[in-house]
């Protein structure tokens, strides 16, 4: 368990995995009450973190443009085309 890692620094995937682990652990019923409260709080933070990451999803399409020097840049593309 990545208890040391701050929730904010976790990727969505890691956060979700840890959340899953916590849920399973909690549902397993082997956790003592005090510990269960602790991991519940962690789980709640992970959940909020995950939902936060899911919230700001927006489609943005850019096309790569190569100039004469071979430098790469990106220009927005209308998704309506």
């Amino acid at each position: 368990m990545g208890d040391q890692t701050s929730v904010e620094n976790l990727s969505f995937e890691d956060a979700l995995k840890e959340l899953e682990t916590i849920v399973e652990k909690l549902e397993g019923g082997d956790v003592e009450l005090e510990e269960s409260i602790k991991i519940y709080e962690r789980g709640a933070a992970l959940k909020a973190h995950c939902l936060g990451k899911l919230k700001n999803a927006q489609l943005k399409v850019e096309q790569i443009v190569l100039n004469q020097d071979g430098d790469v840049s990106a220009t927005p593309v209308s998704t309506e085309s």
Partner: protein
Amino acid sequence: MSDFFPSDRPASANLPELSVSELAGSIKRTIETTYDRVRVRGELGRVTIAKSGHMYADLKDDKAVINTIMWKGSVSRLPFRPEEGLEVVAEGKLSTYPGRSNYQLIADTMNPAGAGALMALLEERKKKLAAEGLFETSRKQPLPYFPKVIGVVTSPTGAVIRDILHRISDRFPVHVLVWPALVQGDRAAQQITAGIEGFNALTPDGPVPRPDVIIVARGGGSIEDLWPFNEEIVVRAAAASQIPLISAVGHETDTTLIDYASDRRAPTPTGAAEIAVPVRSELVQTVTAYGERLMRGLTQTSRRSERELTAVAARLPRPTALLESRQQRFDYAEGRLTQSLQAALLKKRSMFDQTGPRLRPKTLETSLRVLDDRVSQASRRLTAGLTRQATLGESRLATVSKRLSLRGDALLRETKDTGEVQQAADRMARAFDRQATRLEDRLSRAGNMLEALSYQATLKRGYAVVKSADGQLVRDAASARAAQRMTVQFADGDVDVTTQADGAPPAAPKPKKAVPPKGAQGSLF
């Protein structure tokens, strides 16, 4: 030249004489007109691509060889890399090269001869690349669950990119970078390779974000159309990609070599989008569901703890219950205590009742009388004894004194010293006095003893002597009523009391038991 013609055909004077160039030109025209468009199937022999970009090759079968040329422009459009031994179908026109008395096939298209041949080529190449380990499962990278940026290498126009964008938008809108590339034709392989390598060359903190996953996609087509995705450079670039790569070329039944080298093969471009991004709504649901399970889990845990506590608490006796058994024991003991106390009391009482009646004043009186008698007797005997002793002593003294007188006279006579006689007489008188005093002391002690044995001892046992003011013994209630003031004598002292005029019980509480009157003893003194 005419020598070469059959002799039966005589040289005709009207046969125009041609220059070599004229003839060569004529042949060239004839061939080019006659074989304006040919389709030839053969095996590629020696293949050379010159620096100019033109390709020179031999097209042959088991009996003949035709020089084949492909100009640079056509070579670049070749869907495959021409290799020696490959059976191809070439299309073009025949022409001649007058300078070398040579005719040749100017091919503008060339394709491997049929799918079978291409497949054979594909198999061969696949074996070679597999031998290098490019298709190893161990090389496969896991795809990110949640990519922020997706790089797509494909044609910027057409249905493929539209399908991908739509599907990504539907599932999980993210940032998509499109690397435009031809996906068909001779330049396709190079551009696709450039796209894969270009995405990998991006730095995470550069102006263009580095994709978390790459999709290389193309729509369906013939095996020839899809051929760029079988090219070594493309396959190698895909295998070398540090960014996880999804290949989505053609339809599900089409398999190109990039599919073996990619980290994941998608059946279609749309499928690639589905692999690349999860469905956001499902994720929201998943996370939300986890949140609910989390809450339930905590509730369960706390409920279980509560149950355990209750169970333990149930086994824990109630404080009152703890007291109850002791209370019961106490009550029982208390009951028995009262009972046994009463029983003991009853027993003592019965013992007392048995002994009480026997303890009457008469009993005491009897014993006192006996004692009294013994004292009186002793007194009498003492007096008699003393008298007797005194009489005896007197008579003995008289005798001794008579003898002494006689002796004294004799002595006086003998010594004539009256002083000695006088001395002896004095000693005798002193001896007598001492003896008398001793006897007197003994008598006094005996009297005291008698006193002690008398009522004083009785007083110590709790009796009292009541006397009137004039010192007379008060023996009954009547005399007590008559006497106004009385003295009650206890063993340790006297108390003065007054009697009530109305005949109430006297203050002296002590029993008026018969006490040997002082007078009775006084007889002795």
